[in-house]
């Protein structure tokens, strides 16, 4: 194309529109979910229900009912309970660890690779980039949770079959309502992770090394989990982010017991706000020299 054409006619130059700002988010999501690392994390998460299902099957496979833990009989009676069991198994460790990798690497990985400076001079805008990274991390939380739930549903249906659901409170509801409740549980589990996501993002603004940020985030998550079990720390435990995590089981009561779920979501919101603000304060003032 000739110079004169581009300069004089400038045929396709449009004034910037507000929606264009979403281009980076779309790109971020596309990049995250096409990345091999993300796919490996999701594959590992999808494997958990398979292992849990096989373990339950093997333990009860010889026909004898040996009165195992309550959830095992629930699972063998209805494959749908594998969804709840798998979410309960992955929420304390696997999900936050996978999230720690994604959130911890969000800014630090870009800084370490040097791509951060080019995003900033593009100019992505520091606040906008941080919001994009946080949104991307939250979408990962949701997708990761749904992957666990979906894998568990398929494995549960294959190994144990699906049917009417007997809730924890003893009421029996049709399978359709059971599925709806499973979806709600997955949603609450995903929301349970928004505090950790913000924490990981904050850690990510502190260092120029993605690996260090991931390790630090995962370390903090594990530390909090341990603190949450120490009886000496009874007084502070209600303020630790994992404290109400397993309250999602209350969605399986009739009527639903909302108190702990509400406490959980409130606590997550506080963590998200505090660490989100800290991440913003840090990232918008930091010298980017990498």
């Amino acid at each position, binding site marked *: *194309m000739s*110079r004169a054409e*581009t300069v004089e006619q400038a045929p*396709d*130059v*449009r004034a*910037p529109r507000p929606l*264009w*700002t979403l*281009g*980076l988010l*779309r*790109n971020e999501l596309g*990049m995250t979910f096409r*990345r*091999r690392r993300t796919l490996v994390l999701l594959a590992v998460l999808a494997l958990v229900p398979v292992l849990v299902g096989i373990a339950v099957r093997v333990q009860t496979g010889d026909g004898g009912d040996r009165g195992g833990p309550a959830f095992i009989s629930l699972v063998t009676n209805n494959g749908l309970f594998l969804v709840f069991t798998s979410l309960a198994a992955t929420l304390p460790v696997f999900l936050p660890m996978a999230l720690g990798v994604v959130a911890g690497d969000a800014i630090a990985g870009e800084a370490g*690779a*040097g*791509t*951060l*400076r*080019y*995003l*900033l*001079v*593009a*100019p*992505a*805008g520091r606040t*906008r*980039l941080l919001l994009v990274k946080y949104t991307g991390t939250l979408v990962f939380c949701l997708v990761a949770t749904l992957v666990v739930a979906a894998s568990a549903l398929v494995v549960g249906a294959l190994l144990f079959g699906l049917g009417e659901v007997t809730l924890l409170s003893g009421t029996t509801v049709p399978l359709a309502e059971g599925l709806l409740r499973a979806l709600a549980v997955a949603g609450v589990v995903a929301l349970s992770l928004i505090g950790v996501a913000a924490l990981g993002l904050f850690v990510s603004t502190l260092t120029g090394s993605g690996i260090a940020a991931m390790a630090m985030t995962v370390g903090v998550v594990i530390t909090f989990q341990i603190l949450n079990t120490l009886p000496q720390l009874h007084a502070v435990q209600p303020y630790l982010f994992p404290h109400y995590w397993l309250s999602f089981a209350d969605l399986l009561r009739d009527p639903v017991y909302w108190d702990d779920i509400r406490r959980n979501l409130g606590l997550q919101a506080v963590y998200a706000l505090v660490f989100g603000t800290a991440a913003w304060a840090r990232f918008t*003032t930091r*010298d*980017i*020299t990498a």
Partner: protein
Amino acid sequence: MAPPSSDGEDGARPGAPVIETHGLTKAYGSGPPAVDGLDLSVPPGSIFGFLGPNGSGKTTTIRMLMGLIEPTAGGARLLGEPMPGAARRVLPRVGALIEGPALYGFLTGRANLLRYDAADPTADPRTRAARVTAALDRVGLAAAAGKKARAYSLGMKQRLGLAAALLRPRELLVLDEPTNGLDPQGMREIRGLVRELAADGTTVFLSSHLLDEIEQVCTHAAVMSRGRLIAQGTVAELAAGARGRLAVTTPDTADAARVLKEHGLTDLVVGEERVTGELPGPGAGVPAVVGGGLDPADLNAALVAAGVRVRAFGTERASLEDVFVALTGEGFDVAG
């Protein structure tokens, strides 16, 4: 070309500096500042060489210009607007290569550019694909666009970084050592590209620790040493600022040297059939008008009168290296 006006409060005024800094300073911890009280003025349309040995503060200056780091003191204006305050308005009109390219190794070259373009909220998504293709073409990477960037050679990475700076028509290009790590052929290509872009009317701010590179492509230059600006102006002005050396080619070197010495030349170097010496200037460190008070024609006549057979006679133009040595009393660390 008309000298650039030195004051630039109104950025829209034609002829106002494209880059302007006032007392720009960056200090890391204690110790001497990495950049110390920089007053730069880059006229529009120039190819401005930002010259200095490694560690003299070039990259630090560029980071402040682009709003990546906060100055300790002083300020900078880009395209007439203050940085980093006006970054959102200014940076879409500026392309930059800062301390080498940085790429997503797991993405293709093309996907890298799509991402950087998406990062700019004022870049039209409808023309994105076409602009990325054009940028890849411009740097000669069209054939390798589908390869993962981690498989690129250093030269290809450098060119992809340049392509990212060329995703949109820019008013200013800031290129930090764009030929670093390239072979001579790659260097020539980049220089050609820079000239081409400047011919389109883009102002190019080019940092380098290579003297000949600046001399070859730049119209203007600023010289940095240990965080301080020691000179700036057109390349011709700068070179004239250093006293050139007089060179006489003759078989009668001894007689020639004696005559030159009598006429006040200093630092005489006698080689085989060749004598060079420094013309006396009006005062140490002060730029000499060509030859100072001494007319080279008189000198030539004196040589001939003394029976010296002169084969060639002339003043050698001072190089930027001479400027640097004259101003700092130090050699230029070219190897570093």
